[in-house]
């Protein structure tokens, strides 16, 4: 995605006075943001804007990659060949999304290795939702319906992000994400037409995931110090609370069609607000999971690190092979 590795003429080599002063650069950047313009990798940008984007895009990429694990657990146990093929395709998509996003982050001057190191050392965060276990097959359906549904709510506004490569990556991601949500919902519909045990399994999965999905939108705007700056820069387009409300309003009728209850006694339509009211999210539990004490944090990270280490010889071998081929070509040419 318009890499940083491209050969751009050295700015320092230009005659003095041609290069713009820092103030002028800053003003040009702000003016472009004010007119809802896009920023591209080679454009000047404030350090804080760059840092915020690297953090957000790399966290997003890590979430896609770690997100392969909870569902990957069910590939070998999918109830039919059809469901297995669908799940493999979905998990492969998540891997692809991670790759689009790593590429987008790299345009900001960070390297793939740096980002992976940050993930593997526990320094970088990923979405907390993946630190909960997938206990039954219904969890796979609920992840598609609710987790991916919440992710879509979050991601659609990012297609208009002020940073070009991120926005373009998100357009690709969102196109594919719709399949993820629909396959999950459809799998649940099938289970809800099944035995009482299957219906109970779906309800149990919904009960366990519902509140975690609401927390996915992040803390209330009032407690989210980065939110305002992100909105100002056009990195974020819609606040956490508004997105969460949209998700609740969209999900309630879907739950009715499915025939499940959302586990919130306070959830009801508010005629005056023209929105659903909902209960209190357990933020203490959310933050404990973010800080590393969720049920699966250690397991997820360990699985990720092991996969990376186990693959090291493949990466080395591919590079060694490429070098050997190149040397042979050079020799033949000489």
């Amino acid at each position, binding site marked *: 995605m318009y890499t940083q*590795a491209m050969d751009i003429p050295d700015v320092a080599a*230009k005659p003095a006075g041609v290069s713009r002063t820092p103030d002028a650069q800053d003003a040009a950047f702000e003016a472009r943001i004010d007119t809802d313009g896009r920023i591209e990798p080679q454009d000047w940008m404030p350090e804080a804007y760059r840092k915020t984007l690297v953090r957000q895009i790399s966290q997003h990429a890590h979430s896609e990659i770690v997100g392969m694990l909870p569902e990957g657990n069910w590939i070998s146990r999918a109830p039919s060949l059809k469901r297995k093929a669908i799940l493999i395709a979905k998990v492969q998509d998540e891997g692809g999304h991670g790759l689009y996003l790593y*590429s987008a982050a*790299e345009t900001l001057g960070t390297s793939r290795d740096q980002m992976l190191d940050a993930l593997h050392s526990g320094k970088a965060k990923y979405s907390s939702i993946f630190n909960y276990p997938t206990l039954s097959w219904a969890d796979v359906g609920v992840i598609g319906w609710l987790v991916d549904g919440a992710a879509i709510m979050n991601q659609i506004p990012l297609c208009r992000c002020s940073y070009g490569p991120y926005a373009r990556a998100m357009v690709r991601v969102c196109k594919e994400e719709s399949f993820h949500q629909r396959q999950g919902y459809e799998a649940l519909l099938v289970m809800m037409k099944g035995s009482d045990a299957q219906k109970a399994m779906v309800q149990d999965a919904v009960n366990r995931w519902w509140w975690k999905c609401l927390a996915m939108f992040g803390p209330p705007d009032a407690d989210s110090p980065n939110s305002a700056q992100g909105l100002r820069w056009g990195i974020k387009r819609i606040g956490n609370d508004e997105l969460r409300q949209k998700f609740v309003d969209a999900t309630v009728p879907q739950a009715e069609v499915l025939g499940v209850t959302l586990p919130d006694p306070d959830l009801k339509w508010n005629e005056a607000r023209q929105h659903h009211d909902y209960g209190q999210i357990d933020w203490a539990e959310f933050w404990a999971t973010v800080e590393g004490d969720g049920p699966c944090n250690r397991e997820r990270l360990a699985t990720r690190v092991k996969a990376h280490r186990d693959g090291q010889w493949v990466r080395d071998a*591919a590079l060694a092979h*490429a070098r050997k081929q190149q040397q042979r070509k050079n020799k033949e040419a000489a």
Partner: protein
Amino acid sequence: MNTPALKEWPLWEVFVRSKQGLEHKHCGSLHAADAAQALHMARDVYTRRQEGVSIWVVPSAAITASNPDDKGELFDPAADKIYRHPTFYAIPDEVGHM
């Protein structure tokens, strides 16, 4: 076991022709050890849903780009040459479509 000489796979830019008759369009980038692997991976990463009939991969380092700071001097001169557009010329209505 880790030889220090071995590091990250180089970066490649990926261009995909979505259908016969259309141009190749830039769609993203990826890391790969060599061109053959870059093609193979581009297929998996960027064409999982029949998005293409042909792929180009180009080493990112081989691309020379214009400098954004030069945007003004490169592209602004075209702004006052409106006579390069067909709409600059008034043609009587009775001539019809031209």
